[in-house]
């Protein structure tokens, strides 16, 4: 159609006008609103927020937190600055717990499986209560399983198990029961001592990833900040794997796995030979060692050959930690070999050599707290205990098992065959929030309250040097959004056995009533009567008393070489296909607890920035030799199973080791945890420490096989491969006393050549130093 200019203009004018009229005419009054598509309840009364002090027993062992509640919903968590354990610090994954409370896959109904091979179906509360009462009646043999906890929950679990003549066991994935054993053997106490890192001058840690997630990371994080301020402290870390603690240490030592004790004794050797500490301390230390063993058996040059660690580094550490207040701590993978107890024990004994026990800035022993209504132990049952226990289950000697707070079907290694054991127990009753492998293997599922809806008390682990009891209190109602149908674990057990108490709330109150009666107006809350005291406790989030400390310095050092398995973990100790040493580690997902929280899943791992999948860290050079690129699909096979991971080569992996994170790979979970990754906990070796029976999860060997495919590993750093950059350039690094400006200048000179920005001209430099300054 031929259009001349005039017609074109009039047409376009009309169509524009048409558009305007069309819009202006039919104005539906209420619909002219452009509403936010996420349908925020903007018409609701915008309330004023309230903050409650509470704590998260299961996930954050007694850390004090403040929870923001707005219109009856939990919005945010932050650390409680008042609380002596974490002093306002928060774990990185703390907020993720909110998404476990409001998870779209949260269970609201009781479920039952009427026969072992049947499927799970919903059941009404009344019906299931009858079945539960039958299953837990006085004549049944009962076992109660929870996570390690020292709280009213632990006490109630214990009492309930006792009332039926049964047993109460605890399980922790990647357990550190050797740590508790070693501490008991030296300090004669079950309490992990308080490491006064904030006031220390040097911290030497063996395997304990204290900066990231060992025992009390929020408290240690706060201490780390203080250590780095003012009089800056020195941190050294000994661990085969490059953990976050290793990344933040000033000196990282990567010995052959299992040889940490050699490093410790070599450090002792140097200190003793060069007399770096007073004679009395040397004497105390050497008293129990076989004559000459340390002085002649652990020369740094020999140790360098045996462990692969440079003697210069061992020297550096020895010289540094003998000056000022030093702390030596051990845990994590160090205590999880077949000679784990020996390693841990030797490392802790260095504190005696350095004379740091009971001193400020040193290792401060914690008082043992007894409370009538708090029970349980921080130390989990060892794998030996569990092997014996599960044998009983398999033989059919147990009628009912009650499981809460721990996903044993997911976390136990294949060697224990937990699913087979569960199949032989007549009634498996589990408490849980979101479907997981244990719930899937159970006969009755009870939807549980989260810590936002529940009372509790907890003795933090470790204590801050004096008596502390944290309070957990409900901040939202049980029938609120996300929770309807939830049942309190403690209230349920009390229901089944009323002689234990009247309710969870009353038990928690009794705990603090005892404190009120015993404290005699000292401590963090001073009140005239019990009710005001409880109010005060609720406001502060717990009760602590700096006067209740431990005085004694009961140290009984015995000859560590009496441990028969000293140094027994070696290359000879191999299992199936012994090419690589497998090092499992926990990060934001913990032991799988947070795998249903998208916030936790999407938090980039500190070292690799990888998310949402299971990866295996392998040394860059070794990967090149083996022709492995990032994202290659790798199969790792141990003597008890095989998993599939995506390769992630980076410079900091010890050649010969492979590091795999835990948390993914659940066979049954919510939408955010299903069908992703692999569960490395399953293929860990069934070995245990011969001395103590603890789980030797760090003693697993695997063979590596390339599957030939490549998947993109989801990580925050995008397509960037992990390669080393010019030191000190992207993140400016200064030496003590150097200014940032000087460091920048230095970088300019050093790296201009390499980066070819400008030709390095010596003459020009000398004549015109200022010429370099222009950016």
């Amino acid at each position, binding site marked *: 159609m031929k259009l001349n200019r005039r017609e074109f203009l009039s047409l376009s004018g009309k169509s524009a006008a048409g558009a305007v009229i069309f819009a202006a005419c039919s104005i539906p009054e209420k619909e002219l609103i452009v509403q936010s598509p996420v349908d925020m309840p903007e018409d609701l009364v915008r309330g004023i927020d309230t903050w409650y002090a509470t704590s998260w027993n299961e996930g954050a062992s007694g850390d004090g937190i403040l929870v923001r509640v707005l219109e009856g919903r939990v919005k945010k968590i932050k650390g409680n600055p008042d609380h002596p354990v974490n002093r306002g610090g928060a774990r*990185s994954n703390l907020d993720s717990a909110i998404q476990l409370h409001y998870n779209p896959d949260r269970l609201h109904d009781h479920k039952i499986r009427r026969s072992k091979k049947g499927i799970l179906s919903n059941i009404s509360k009344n019906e299931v209560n009858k079945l539960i009462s039958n299953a837990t009646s006085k004549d049944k043999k009962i076992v109660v399983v929870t996570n390690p906890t020292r709280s009213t929950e632990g006490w109630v679990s214990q009492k309930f198990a006792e009332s039926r003549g049964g047993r109460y066991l605890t399980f922790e994935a990647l357990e550190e029961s050797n740590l508790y054993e070693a501490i008991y053997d030296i300090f004669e106490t079950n309490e992990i001592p308080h490491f006064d890192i904030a006031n220390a001058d040097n911290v030497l840690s063996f395997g304990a990833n204290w900066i990231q997630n060992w025992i009390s990371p929020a408290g240690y994080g706060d201490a780390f900040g203080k250590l780095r301020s003012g009089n800056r402290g020195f941190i050294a870390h000994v661990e085969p794997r490059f953990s976050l603690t290793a990344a933040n240490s000033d000196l990282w030592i990567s010995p052959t796995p299992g040889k940490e004790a050699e490093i410790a004794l070599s450090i002792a050797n140097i200190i003793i030979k060069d007399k770096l500490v007073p004679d009395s301390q040397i004497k105390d230390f050497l008293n129990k060692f076989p004559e000459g063993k340390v002085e002649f058996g652990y020369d740094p040059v020999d140790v360098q050959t045996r462990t692969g660690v440079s003697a210069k580094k061992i020297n550096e550490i020895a010289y540094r930690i003998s000056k000022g207040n030093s702390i030596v701590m051990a845990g994590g993978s160090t205590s999880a070999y077949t000679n784990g107890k020996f390693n841990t024990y030797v490392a802790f004994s260095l504190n005696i050599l350095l004379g740091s026990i009971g001193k400020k800035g040193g290792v401060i022993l914690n008082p043992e707290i007894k409370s009538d209504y708090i029970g349980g132990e921080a130390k989990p049952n060892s794998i030996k205990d569990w092997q014996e226990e599960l044998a009983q289950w398999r033989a059919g000697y147990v009628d009912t098992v009650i499981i809460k707070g721990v996903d044993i079907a997911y976390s136990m290694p294949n060697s224990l065959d937990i699913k087979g054991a569960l199949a032989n127990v007549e009634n498996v009753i589990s408490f849980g929030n979101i479907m997981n492998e244990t719930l899937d293997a159970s006969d009755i599922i009870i939807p549980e309250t989260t810590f936002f809806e529940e009372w509790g008390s907890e003795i933090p682990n470790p204590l801050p040097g004096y008596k502390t009891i944290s309070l957990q209190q409900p901040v939202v109602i049980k029938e609120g959004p996300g929770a309807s149908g939830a049942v309190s674990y403690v209230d349920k057990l009390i229901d089944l056995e009323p002689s234990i108490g009247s309710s969870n709330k009353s038990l928690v109150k009794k705990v603090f009533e005892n404190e009120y009666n015993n404290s005699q107006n000292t401590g963090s809350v001073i009140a005239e009567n019990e009710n005001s005291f409880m109010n005060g406790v609720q406001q502060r989030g717990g009760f602590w008393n700096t006067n209740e400390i431990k005085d004694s310095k009961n140290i009984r050092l015995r000859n560590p070489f009496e441990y028969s398995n000293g140094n027994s973990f070696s290359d000879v100790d191999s299992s199936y296909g012994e090419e690589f040493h497998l090092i499992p580690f926990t990060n934001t997902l913990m032991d799988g607890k947070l795998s249903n929280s998208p916030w936790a899943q999407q938090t980039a791992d500190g070292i690799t*920035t990888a998310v949402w999948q299971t990866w295996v860290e392998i040394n860059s050079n070794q990967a090149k030799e083996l022709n492995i690129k990032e994202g290659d699909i790798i199969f790792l096979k141990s003597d008890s199973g095989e998993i599939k991971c995506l390769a992630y080569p980076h410079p900091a992996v010890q*050649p010969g080791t492979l590091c795999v994170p835990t948390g993914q790979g659940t066979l049954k979970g919510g939408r955010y945890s299903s069908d992703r990754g692999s569960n490395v906990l399953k293929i860990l070796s069934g070995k245990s420490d011969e001395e103590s029976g603890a789980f030797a999860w760090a003693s697993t060997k695997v063979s590596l096989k390339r599957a030939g495919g490549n998947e993109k590993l989801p990580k925050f750093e995008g397509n960037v491969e992990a390669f080393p950059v010019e030191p000190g350039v992207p993140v400016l690094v200064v*030496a003590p006393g150097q200014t940032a400006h000087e460091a920048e200048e230095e970088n300019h000179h050093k790296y201009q050549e390499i980066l070819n920005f400008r030709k390095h001209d010596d003459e020009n430099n000398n004549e015109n130093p200022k010429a370099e300054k222009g950016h």
Partner: protein
Amino acid sequence: MVTEEKRSWGMVIDTDKCNGCSGCVTACQVENNIPLNDQNKFERGRAMSWIRIERYWEGEFPDVKARFIPVLCQHCANAPCEPVCPVYATYHNDEGLNVQVYNRCVGTRYCANGCPYTVRFFNYWEPVWPEDLRNHLNPDVTIRSRGIMEKCSFCVQRIKRGSRKAKEENRELQDGEIKTACQEACSTNAIVFGDLNNPNSEVSKLSKSESDRKYTLMPQLNTDPNVVYLATIDPLKYKDLGEKAKSNDH
């Protein structure tokens, strides 16, 4: 006729204290209703996080180091993102903040083009919040829909709340009263936020006392950022303790 004295919000981040735990990252996500980053987003390189921990490797095994630095919107006084917005959706307010006005943004993404720190993020997709997860959304922060730029706002909602509270109670704003979410979450106190115009605030004091270690990111670009970093100290910077000492080959 503005009667309150001018504040200038700024931040000091001590990279020596930052341990790379990503607590700030999660706290920021929670506070600001940032859309969930599922695996798909990471694979496409579109994961959104207003504050991120950048990790750089140095050296080869066993003398390898990792350095962490949290990077967020620098709230540059001379911001390259501000003058280029065709609808004036981003501007510098008189308290020193680089403000992003969500309802004005039309999504040209010209601002993100100019930002040298890559701290601006665009909502390529509509945020999806399953019914139950909506319960934890923070009502103080607008939820951005598809097509809108967003970035760190120095928790402007907290600044407004705190300022208002102080004004209602007829008193001065105390230092430390307004804490950004990242500052609150940082257990090592590596992040310090406050009023640079207040000589007694912790940020001002830190800037003075630690001025030896002070530096800003990419100073050659002349963006004049309000976020100051303190350099990491390495006591072994000039000491060479390494030799590739591995004698056992695995």
